[in-house]
C-alpha cells in the first residue's frame, strides 16, 4: 500500500528527515510534480547530473532558486550565478582567474588560527556549539580573508547576506524584502570597495579592481564598482551559510557514528575523505533549481517550457544505483564524486575553500575534543529554499552528566547582560566595561576603559585585537554618548548612544555604513 508521495520543500516536519521521501521519489516518482507550488523535481543521480550539465535546456537566467524563477527574477549581468552563457561565461572566466585554488589554499593557516581562537576557550568545559562557537563565524571570516575585508566589518557583512537568503520556516522567500536587504548590503560594500581602491593589497578585492576582462558585449575593460559589489555579494552569499551548514553536519553526523569518529580522531589522514562523505550524506544545499527552456518528456511525462525543475542533490547523493547503501554513512565507501557542489558550468567555484574549511575545522575539533555527543533536544534545525542545516547545535564534550543544567558557552562569554538592578545609588562610570554589540546571530565583545578628570571622561575601547581612544563622551542625566574611531584596518566611526540603568549601559551602536546594532555594557 503506498500513498501518493508528497514532497514539499517548505514542510518543516519533512525537513527533519527527508531521506525516506527522497528514496520513494527516486524509486516511485523519478519525475515528481508538486501542484501546490507548481514545480517538477528529479531525484536520481543520473538525471540530476545530466540536467545540470545541460545548460541550454535548463536555464539559470532567472536564478537557481524556486521562488526566484517563479518570479522571473532578473539580476544584473555580474550576478553570474543567476545567468546563462554568454553573460555567465564572461564573469565566471574572470572569477576563475581570481578565486583560484592557490589563493584559497593560501588562507589555510589563517583559518587554522581562527579555529584555534574559537575552540581553545572551550577546552576543559562541557559544551560546544558547532554553530555558535565555530560555524557562524569561521566561513564568513574565510571568505572575507579571501576578499580582504577588514576583520571588524566581517560580521555585519555576513549578517546582511544571511538575512537575504534566509526564509522563514514553512514560507517561501519574500522577494521584495530580499531586494530591500540587497540594496542595504550593496550600499555597505560600496564604501568598502572605495576604501580598498585607495589601499590596494594582494587580496581578491584588489584584483577585482584591477583585472581586465571581456564583458558580455565583447568589450575589454575593468569591472565597475557596481559589478564588484554584485560579485562580492554572490561569493559571500554562496560561501557563508553553506559552509556553516557543513560544520554543523560534521558535528551531527560524527556524533551519531562514534566508531567512525574515533577512527578519524586516531588517524587524521582520514579527515579529507570524512569531509567528502559528510558532504555526500548531508549536502548543505539540498537542491538547486532551473527553468526548463523547451517542452520535454522525462520518465514518460511531459514537462512544459517555462516550468521550474528542482534538482534534488540530496536525493541524488544517496541513489543506490550509484552509491552502495547510499543511506548509510561510511567514510570508507567507494570514492565516487557526489553532487553537492553542483555540476557543469555553474559548479561551485568555492569548493576548494569549502573543503579546506571542512578539513581544517574537523582536524582542529578532533585534536581538542575527540569525543562529543550532540544535544538534539536543544538543537535547532532550519531548512530554506537554499540551505538545510543547524542554526544551533550544542554538544557535550566533557564528562558532566547529560542531564546537568549547563549554559552553552558563547564566543567570549558574551551573554545578554543581567536585568538592570534598581538604582543603587551613584554608579561610577570610570573603570572597565564589558561591551557587547549584538548582531542577531552573535555578540561582538569589546572592552571600554573610562577615566574621569574633572567633568570630562576619556578612555579607550578594545575589540577584535585593536585598541583605539574614544572621543566626545557625554553624560546627560542617565544618557550617554561616545564615539569610537576605529582606524585599523579601515577607518570607520562607531557611535554609541545609550542609557545607564543601574549598573547596565544599553543602547545602539551605529557602525558607519554597516548599520546600527544594540549593545549592552556591564561593569567588569
Amino acid at each position, binding site marked *: 500500500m503506498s500513498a501518493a508521495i508528497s514532497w514539499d520543500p517548505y514542510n518543516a516536519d519533512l525537513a527533519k528527515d527527508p531521506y525516506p521521501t527522497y528514496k520513494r521519489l527516486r524509486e516511485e516518482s523519478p519525475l515528481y510534480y508538486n501542484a501546490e507550488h507548481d514545480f517538477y523535481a528529479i531525484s536520481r543521480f543520473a538525471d540530476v547530473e545530466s540536467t545540470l550539465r545541460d545548460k541550454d535546456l535548463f536555464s539559470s537566467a532567472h536564478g537557481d532558486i524556486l521562488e526566484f524563477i517563479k518570479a522571473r527574477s532578473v539580476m544584473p549581468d555580474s550576478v553570474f550565478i543567476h545567468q546563462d552563457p554568454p553573460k555567465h561565461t564572461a564573469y565566471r572566466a574572470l572569477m*576563475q582567474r581570481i578565486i583560484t*585554488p592557490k589563493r584559497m589554499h593560501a588562507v589555510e593557516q589563517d583559518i587554522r588560527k581562527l579555529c584555534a581562537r574559537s575552540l581553545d576557550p572551550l577546552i576543559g568545559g562541557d559544551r560546544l556549539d558547532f554553530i555558535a562557537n565555530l560555524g557562524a563565524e569561521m566561513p564568513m571570516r574565510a571568505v572575507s580573508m579571501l576578499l580582504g575585508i577588514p576583520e571588524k566589518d566581517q560580521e555585519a557583512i555576513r549578517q546582511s547576506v544571511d538575512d537575504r537568503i534566509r526564509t522563514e520556516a514553512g514560507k517561501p522567500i519574500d522577494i521584495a524584502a530580499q531586494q530591500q536587504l540587497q540594496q542595504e548590503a550593496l550600499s555597505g560594500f560600496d564604501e568598502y570597495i572605495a576604501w580598498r581602491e585607495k589601499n590596494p593589497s594582494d587580496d581578491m578585492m584588489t584584483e577585482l579592481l584591477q583585472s581586465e576582462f571581456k564583458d558580455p558585449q565583447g568589450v575589454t575593460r575593468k569591472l565597475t564598482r557596481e559589478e564588484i559589489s554584485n560579485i562580492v555579494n554572490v561569493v559571500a552569499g554562496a560561501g557563508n551559510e553553506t559552509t556553516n551548514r557543513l560544520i554543523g553536519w560534521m558535528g551531527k553526523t560524527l556524533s551519531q557514528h562514534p566508531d567512525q569518529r574515533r577512527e578519524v580522531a586516531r588517524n587524521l589522514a582520514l579527515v579529507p575523505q570524512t569531509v567528502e562523505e559528510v558532504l555526500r550524506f548531508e549536502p548543505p544545499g539540498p537542491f538547486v533549481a532551473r527553468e526548463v527552456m523547451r517542452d520535454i518528456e522525462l520518465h514518460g511525462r511531459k514537462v512544459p517550457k517555462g516550468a521550474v525543475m528542482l534538482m534534488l542533490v540530496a536525493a541524488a547523493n544517496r541513489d543506490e544505483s550509484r552509491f552502495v547503501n547510499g543511506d548509510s554513512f561510511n567514510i570508507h565507501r567507494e570514492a*565516487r564524486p557526489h553532487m553537492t557542489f553542483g555540476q557543469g558550468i555553474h*559548479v561551485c567555484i568555492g569548493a576548494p575553500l569549502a573543503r579546506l574549511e571542512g578539513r581544517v575545522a574537523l582536524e582542529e575539533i578532533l585534536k581538542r575534543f575527540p569525543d562529543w555527543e550532540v544535544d538534539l533536544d536543544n538543537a535547532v534545525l532550519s531548512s530554506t529554499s537554499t540551505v538545510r542545516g543547524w542554526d544551533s547545535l550544542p554538544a557535550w564534550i566533557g564528562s558532566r552528566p547529560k542531564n546537568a543544567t549547563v549554559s552553552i558557552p558563547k564566543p567570549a562569554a558574551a551573554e545578554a547582560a543581567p536585568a538592570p538592578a534598581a538604582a543603587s545609588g551613584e554608579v561610577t562610570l570610570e573603570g572597565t566595561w564589558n561591551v557587547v554589540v549584538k548582531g542577531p546571530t552573535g555578540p561582538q565583545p569589546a572592552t571600554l576603559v573610562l577615566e574621569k578628570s574633572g567633568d570630562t571622561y576619556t578612555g579607550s575601547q578594545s575589540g577584535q585585537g585593536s585598541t583605539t581612544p574614544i572621543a566626545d563622551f557625554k553624560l546627560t542625566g542617565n544618557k550617554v554618548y561616545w564615539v569610537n574611531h576605529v582606524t585599523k584596518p579601515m577607518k570607520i566611526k562607531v557611535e554609541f548612544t545609550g542609557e545607564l540603568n543601574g549598573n547596565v549601559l544599553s543602547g545602539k551602536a551605529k557602525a558607519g555604513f554597516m548599520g546600527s546594532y544594540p549593545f549592552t555594557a556591564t561593569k567588569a
Partner: protein
Amino acid sequence: MPKILFIEHNGKEHLVDAEDGKSVMQTAVENMVPGIVGDCGGACSCATCHGYVDPAWQDKIPPKGETEEMMLDGAMNVEPNSRLTCQILMKAELDGLVVRLPASQF
C-alpha cells in the same frame, strides 16, 4: 578499445578500458579510479581532474586550450606536463596513455 594506465600518487596502478570519444576524466570516474574527482563534469570549470600526462604522450594529445591554460594557472602542484583530463578525448591512437595523479585534487 584503447586503454589508459592511471597511476595514483601512492604508486597504485589502474589499467582501464576507455571508450572512444570519452574524456580521460570521464573514463577515470566511471572506472572508479580514486584521485580524479571531476566536479564540473567536464566543463573545464573546476580543475579537480588534474593529471600528469606521461611525456611520451605529449605530442599525441591536443594542446591546451585557453580556458584549460587559465584553470591550470590557478591550480595546485602544477607541472609542465599537467593537464585537465576532461579536456583529453580518447581515441585509438592514445591506446596505452599513461596519466599520473596528483597527491590531491583539492
